[in-house]
Structures are given as C-alpha cells and as structure tokens.
C-alpha cells in the first residue's frame, strides 16, 4: 500500500539525513597537558570558571592532568573544541584538539 511505501521512503530519507548530520559533527576532545609551571589552584579555577565543572570534577581533572600527564576536559563539535583550546591558550594552559575515537 502506498502508506507502507511512503513510510519506507521516509525512513531511508531519515537515515540519509541523520548520516549527513552525524558525519561533520564527529566529536573532538579538548586535552589539557601537564606542565611544571601552572599552579594547581589556577588550573582548578580555570576548569571551574570556564567549563563550569563542579569543584569536585575540576579537582579530579586537575589531579588527572598532574598525575597522568593529560586529561580530556571537554568534548564537542570541532568549532566548539577549537574555541575551547584557544581559550585554554589564553589562560596559559597547554591544550590540544583531538579527534574522538
């Protein structure tokens, strides 16, 4: 019946649309790297005030950077991640963009 054919077509069209929307929006990670200069209090403050992380989360991420050498502090579309990396550089933190696997 025409309704069935119609719904099948719609589903295919939907799949195509979703595929197109998903591809360019592949998520990117914002990675902050450890360095011996930036103070723990400063790094924790930046994570809280810029990303809006809770004090517990900010502390956890700061300690992860300190002990493991790096931490993913945010993820999102490429443009947002670029913006975040640029902001981290303005704060003097070593940050890089990384394509999510």
């Amino acid at each position, binding site marked *: 019946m025409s309704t069935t054919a119609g719904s099948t077509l719609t589903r295919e069209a939907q799949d195509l649309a979703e595929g197109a929307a998903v591809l360019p929006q592949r998520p990117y990670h914002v990675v902050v790297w450890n360095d*011996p*200069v930036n103070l723990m209090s400063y790094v*924790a403050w930046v994570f809280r005030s810029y990303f809006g992380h809770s004090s*517990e989360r900010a502390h956890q991420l700061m300690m992860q950077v300190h002990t493991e050498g790096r931490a993913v502090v945010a993820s999102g579309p490429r443009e947002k991640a*670029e913006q975040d990396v640029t902001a981290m550089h*303005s704060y003097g933190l070593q*940050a890089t*963009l*990384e394509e999510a696997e």
Partner: protein
Amino acid sequence: MARAFRPTTRGYKAELETHERRLLSQLCADVITMLQQRSQQVDPEPAGEAPDDEFAHFRAELAGLGAGLDEQQEHDDGAEPGLDPPEDQALARLLPDGAADQQQAAQLRRLTEASVRETKIADLRAARMALEHDPVTLTDEQAPVFGRALNDIRLTLASRLGIEDQDDAERIHQSAGQGAAATTEEFMAELYVFTTWLQETLFSAMLDVLPEDE
C-alpha cells in the same frame, strides 16, 4: 614586605612595595614587546608591497619550479597553508600548538594565534594599570585578567630559567630566597618565586569565593 591578595567586600587587595609593583609592570611590558614582535613578524603591514603581491604567485612558481609546484597544487586542493610556531622558547610556550599533528597545529595557529596574542596583550596592559596603585585592588572582573597576566609572566620566566619538569621547579624554589641575588638567573628565580606566590594567593582567594556547587 608584600602582603598577599585577600578577598574584600569589593574584590581583592594586595599590598606591594613600590619596587615590586614597578618590577611586575616592567615584566608585563617585556612580555607585551615579545608578543608584538611576533605580531609584526607574522602579520607584517602590507603597506608599499601591494605591487609585488600581484606577482607573488608567479614568483613562487618561478622559484619553486619542480617540487615547489607540486606543493602549491596540494595547497590549492586542501586548506590554507598553516603558520609555523615561534622559534623563541618563551614565545612558543605563550603560544603553544593546538594539535599534536604538526600540519593540523599550523592550520589552527593560522586561525587562532592572533586572537590569543591580542587577549594576552590586553591582559598584560590591564595588569600594568592595576599595578599603578597601592594597594593593588582588583574587582571580581579584573581578578582573572590580572591572574592571567601573572601566569604569562611566570611562563616566560620559567622558559628563560629552563624549568621543564617538577624537579627544575623545585630547584628554582630552593635556590631563591637564599639572600641577595648576584646573577641575572638568580634574580629571575627570585622574580619567578615572588610572582608564583602572588598568583597562588590570588587564586586561593578566588576559589574560596566561587559559589558552591548546586
């Protein structure tokens, strides 16, 4: 003797000696000069070079001949050419790569480095203004700006002092405060430790007044 930053009803306040304020202000000016030199190097004023630019592509082709031409074609297919990181260690630390991959980092740098430089120059200028007065008084909006400027000073000094890991940082902290600084390096170490202390007191105070989590 300086007194640390502490929260007040209207922002933050620290009492610094006149020579301490003058030294910090001079350091801000030095970092501004470094960043401005980088700006001039990578974004030179196009004045007077317009006629040459018309032939830039032609001259590049002439100069490149073989391999150069292939590269040029690759650039035409893909994104714009990137921007190389600064050669100076301290500048490279102030303006780090934004990606592990060199080519990706160079392309990102072309898009974002100017904005990072401008933010830093504006921060350092605002810090110089704040350092004109004793006590140094910062509103809630000025505090992060001043803190970023202190951080840029510390990054620059750390790079000049060769601080690359935790042990280097420890060594600098141990060596400072041993008495009158006799060499440039000892003096820089004193400044590094002083700026570190000042930044630590500011951000401890700022963390204390951040609203608690919901």
